[in-house]
């Protein structure tokens, strides 16, 4: 029923050339995104947390995170320690901010890595028929290992340091990226304008860069946002089970793992990092939902 209303996308009088409203430029997407209240709330809150975790540590010396003061352990919030102190008397607020920075940085870097490797594999698989089968069968195998087990196997073989944690969760998430980007490229690659570009003798790489990628940008951005929150959760849970970031380095999951031992003494330590994780993942999900609706208004219900 809505299909016969497409005339609304065109406006023309006699003699005037038919002008189609551009549906997908950045301005229009931003306009649609801005109208989405949930998404805007998510974006603003995320910006605050993000800035807090990435800017504030510049003014807090790292020693505040590690300096122990056992006599002052489990201190209640005060002017000196706004969020109190932990079981070693370390300033909890500094640890939260530094910890958030670690959790978010892992999520962001891992998402970028996953996107780069998985996305390129997916793109080439979709664009070159010959590569499709070998790449996708390999991805099928990768994907049938539960991500956590994949991450654990990698951490087990390479050791638990920050780089390996990023590598582990990025690898574990890669198949998902690969499949989504492949599907997106496939849907674009058999469109007429790609055929036309090919018939016009445009090189493959140029077609991919100039025609295919810009048209998959929506999927790429939405997927990356959504996966960032998943990867942050993965990083936190890997650290929680002791196979990720190792204490005393602060990381929200690792901090929760430490807090577990001191539940009887204080609940503060186990509440705050958890709230941090829930906040950031919720915000990213809201932003992701908003972006999805903004890029593809048809999906909006």
């Amino acid at each position, binding site marked *: *029923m*809505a299909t*016969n*209303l*497409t*005339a*609304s996308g*065109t*406006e*023309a*009088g*006699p*003699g005037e050339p*038919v002008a189609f409203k551009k549906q997908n430029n950045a301005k229009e997407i931003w306009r649609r995104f801005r*109208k989405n209240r949930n998404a805007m709330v998510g974006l603003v809150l995320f910006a605050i947390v993000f800035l807090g975790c990435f800017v504030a540590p510049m003014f807090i010396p790292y020693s505040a995170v590690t300096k122990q003061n056992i006599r002052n352990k489990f201190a209640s919030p005060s002017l000196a320690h706004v969020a109190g102190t932990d079981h070693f008397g370390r300033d909890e607020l500094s640890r939260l901010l530094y910890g958030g920075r670690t959790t978010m940085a892992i999520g962001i870097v891992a998402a970028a890595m996953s996107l780069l490797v998985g996305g390129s594999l997916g793109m080439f698989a979709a664009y070159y028929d010959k590569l499709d089968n070998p790449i996708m069968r390999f991805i099928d195998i990768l994907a049938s290992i539960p991500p956590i087990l994949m991450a654990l196997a990698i951490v087990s073989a390479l050791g638990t340091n920050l780089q390996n944690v990023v590598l582990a969760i990025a690898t574990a998430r890669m198949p998902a990226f690969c499949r989504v980007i492949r599907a997106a490229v496939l849907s674009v690659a058999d469109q007429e304008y790609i055929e036309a570009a090919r018939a016009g003798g445009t090189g493959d790489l140029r077609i991919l860069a100039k025609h295919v990628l810009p048209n998959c940008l929506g999927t790429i951005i939405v997927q990356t946002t959504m996966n960032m929150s998943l990867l942050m959760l993965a990083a936190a849970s890997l650290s929680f089970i002791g196979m990720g970031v190792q204490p005393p380095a602060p990381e929200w999951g690792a901090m929760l793992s430490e807090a577990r031992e001191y539940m009887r003494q204080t609940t503060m330590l186990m509440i705050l990092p958890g709230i941090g994780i829930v906040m950031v993942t919720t915000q990213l999900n809201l932003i992701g939902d908003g972006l999805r609706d903004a890029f593809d208004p048809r999906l909006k219900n």
Partner: protein
Amino acid sequence: MGHKLLEVKDLMVDYRTDLETIHAVNGVGFGLDQGETLGLVGETGAGKTTTALAIMRLLPERTGRIVQGDILLNGASVIEGTEKALQRLRGETMAMIFQTPMTSLNPIVSIGNQIAESILLHNTQGRSEGEIQQRVDEVLNMVGIPPARKKEFPHQFSGGMRQRVVIAIALACEPDLLIADEPTTALDVTIQAQVLLKIRDLRDRLGTALIMITHDLGIVAQTCDNVAVMYAGELVETGTARDIFTSATHHPYTRGLFDSIPRLNQKVRRLRPIPGLMPDPTDLPIGCFFSPRCPQARPVCREERPPVFSSGSQRIKCHLFGDQEGFAQAGP
């Protein structure tokens, strides 16, 4: 004149989204007698489907809104009817065939069960399960599908066959009114004729009144008693099929429609398409909606809404007929 089955009075339908309001139907009125066939003709976007959905009260719940007017089915308002009353009307008194046979059937329910559902929902005769199945076979035979295939699923049928299933669903309870919304547009040309023939044949056999929505004047000529030409959400011309096809005087849009189709029996050097596009339904012109494209438009056409003039059974909504011999003003 038989008993008035359907009366549409000054119907106005808007689609409202948070961004814009689309004026899809702007004051449409017509009547339909028992057993009569009305052709609703016009371009894509003229509001034909919206009118049909309004009659069935199947407009998209969130956006579609009947702003004005009334629809009477057997004298009772469809618009004021309760949901329960409507459910009894739909399928039993009025039924609809949609233009998308490929997606109109539930993919995971066998076609037999989809037809049976229609009968079961309006089982006023108190048919038993066996009798319902017997009726399903009957209906399938009627539309030309072997009853043996009733256990099969929609994906096992071609587009034309699926449209037959949709027709079977619509006719299972022998409704008084059938609305066929471009029933053949999505089909291959060879299949189109078959499906059309089937609809006409069943209409004659069951005495169903039919609203045939189409942009194909050929179909109208073959099928319809009366014709209504729709443009930008209003009826610009109505009349008997004879009026539309033989009269010398027409609304400029109707003439444009005829000029833009090729004819085999006349020597026409070149087709004359109507210039321009239908106006933006979110922002309709002030005067006559057709005036921006009308070759005969006068200044008054761009400023005032045209009244309706009539001559015999023919009614035309156009300023040009104010001084035309034989035409008298028949409404605003």
